């Protein structure tokens, strides 16, 4: 088969055969090498976090990929196809222009201050006059996870990417990744007891917070998220957790230790 091996002849049949299969193997090897090279390049250029998010986003259940406009009524049932990044979305301005028919009241007992902007992964951003911004866990996120046993914050100077990992929290052996609401550089960590965890300098961009929710839209989303949480918990042996008119406990894990938190917590924090 190969030159130098008994039985090989420099005849057209042998040459064509060898060339065809040599070409196939070469293309296969080049394909694998290109994929490896591009992977290395993605890490070097800092696009890895964005790629991981897009890959994760594809595997999120449909109910977790709903467009923000599905909550306030301008696009019921619409599924986002941009990884929750409305900054480059062409449909977002059109849907924003539609008058919301059903501004939803905020779920009783949840605290979502007006001046903050909210990310779909249950973090908030509070822009400061000096151009920096505080980042913290929103009220529903804090109630779902409760008091973490361990929090791994990124070091000062680290770069965050929207929807990439901002920090990790662990409790009872299970860990969740909290997604970053903004692109930017970490400047400082919040002291214990503060409601913010990171102070960041957002990356220069024409609309750095366009993808974040605020006002009535954030309220509608928080209510939908509460409904989703109740449905997730209703599959647990503990049964339905919230009667009409009740308020969520401050530490749901402690209140419902038998619930499948290994499933519920990742679902609420958009982890796959």
């Amino acid at each position, binding site marked *: *088969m*190969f030159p130098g*091996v*008994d*039985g090989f002849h420099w005849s057209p*049949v*042998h040459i064509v*055969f060898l060339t065809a*299969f040599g070409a*196939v*193997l070469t*293309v*296969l090897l080049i*394909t*694998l090498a*290109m*994929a*490896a090279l*591009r*992977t290395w390049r*993605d*890490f070097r250029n800092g696009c*890895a*976090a964005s*790629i*991981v998010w*897009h*890959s*994760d986003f*594809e*595997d999120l*259940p*449909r*109910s*977790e990929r709903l467009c923000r406009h599905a909550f306030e009524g301008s696009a019921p049932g619409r599924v986002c196809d941009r990884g929750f990044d409305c900054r480059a979305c062409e449909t977002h301005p059109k849907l924003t222009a539609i008058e919301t028919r059903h501004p939803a009241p905020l779920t009783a007992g949840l605290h979502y201050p007006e001046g903050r902007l909210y990310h779909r992964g249950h973090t908030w951003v509070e822009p400061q006059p000096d151009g920096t911004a505080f980042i913290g866990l929103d009220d529903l996120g804090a109630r779902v996870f409760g008091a973490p046993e361990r929090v791994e914050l990124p070091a000062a100077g680290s770069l965050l990417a929207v929807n990439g990992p901002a920090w990790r929290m662990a409790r009872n052996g299970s860990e969740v990744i909290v997604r970053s609401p903004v692109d930017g550089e970490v400047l400082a960590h919040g002291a214990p007891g503060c409601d913010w965890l990171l102070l960041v300098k957002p990356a220069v961009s024409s609309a750095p917070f366009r993808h974040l929710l605020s006002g009535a839209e954030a309220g509608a989303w928080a209510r939908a998220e509460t*409904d*989703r949480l109740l*449905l*997730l918990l*209703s*599959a647990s*042996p503990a049964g339905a957790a919230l009667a009409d008119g009740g308020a969520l406990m401050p530490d749901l894990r402690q209140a419902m230790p038998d619930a*499948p938190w*290994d*499933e*519920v917590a*990742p*679902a609420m924090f958009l*982890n*796959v």
Partner: protein
Amino acid sequence: MADIPWVPAAMFDRKFVPRGAARCGTAQFSLWLTPWFFLLGLGLWAGYLCLRDGLYHTNMDNRFAFGLWIFLDLAIIAFGGGAFFSGVLLYFLKLKELSAVIRSAVLIGFLCYSGAVTVLMVDVGQPLRAWFTFWHPNTHSMLTEVTFCITCYLVVLSIEYLPVLLRNRQIRKIPSFLVFEWELHKLMPVLAGIGAFLSFFHQGSLGGLYGVLRGRPFAFRESFGIWPTTFFLFILSAMAVGPSFILLTTRLVEWISKRTLVLESVYVKLARISGWMLTFYVLLKSVDTMVWLNSTSRRGGFLPWEYYSWEPFGVWILFVEIGVFGFLPAVWLLRAGRVPTRSLVVPALLACAGIALNRYVLTVQTLALATLPFDEFLSYTPSWQEVAVFGGVAAYGVIVYSILYRYTKLFPQER
């Protein structure tokens, strides 16, 4: 409506199960696998006997050299054709609906081909000399082309399936794997193209090797260039039955798992593709049969009824293959969208049975029929070792598919 994670109490492996996917408890899953592992063990034992003592354990001999193994090999390679054909339809003809089944199609292709290669290794024997076929090939044999193509295609299928594995809930925690998977996925059209190129030739050559048998008038066919008509019929039949087999397996998994895996429109699309290809194949097959019976065979000194005077291979087998397992399912599949989607399982099953019957006829009937005046009609019944080896391969397929269904997201539309 949120996706409720139905988590059985005794699900010890839940950390590996895709989030939001409902799967049974670990004990129930183990119970499901147990009989298959038993069958696999039996197959391994039978395979070991054959490799240790040779084909003495089988009921094949020098005249009946192809038996159950080759017949089923050809059938499952045709069924696995859905992998390459779906890849072509998705990546080149942009039929996006098929993205719902492409992962399962690739896995089925991988299992079919790896299973076929395993059985061939037992059939050929001398596994320590397996590399001889690559190092000292007979470049004038169609089987050489088949060997090279199948080996290369198996590598392609493995690479094509790699992205699905890398998306497993635990494996994906390593970011570099996920980024590599993303980049590899972008190059998937290249792999689909290579897969189509290799499949075209090995599916064709598997048919071609019967069509060139001048000494077997039952199989010998006219040629276009160097390729007999069976070369093209095998390619077409694999393209026709591949989507039907995907439809069938997806419905089967839905039935066993009690989950909805794909939208109904995907079944309709698969059925229509299969229906059109099957129609085209059956028409050409009919023309080929008429030419063979009325011209090719007569020139070889054989009259058509001589082939069908040996029971059980009566003329009924021809009508069943072309009519019941050919035209009927083709028409039925083409009515997809106008008939209940669930009923499409029946024509898909008939289509698969038709292609299996075609491979059976070409393998077993060809060898059973007498060719020379002093020949006798031969009969062949596979030994338990032959059946067990193939049972082992079937069990391997079920086990691997079950495990990967449980731990990876084979169907992105699953709900």
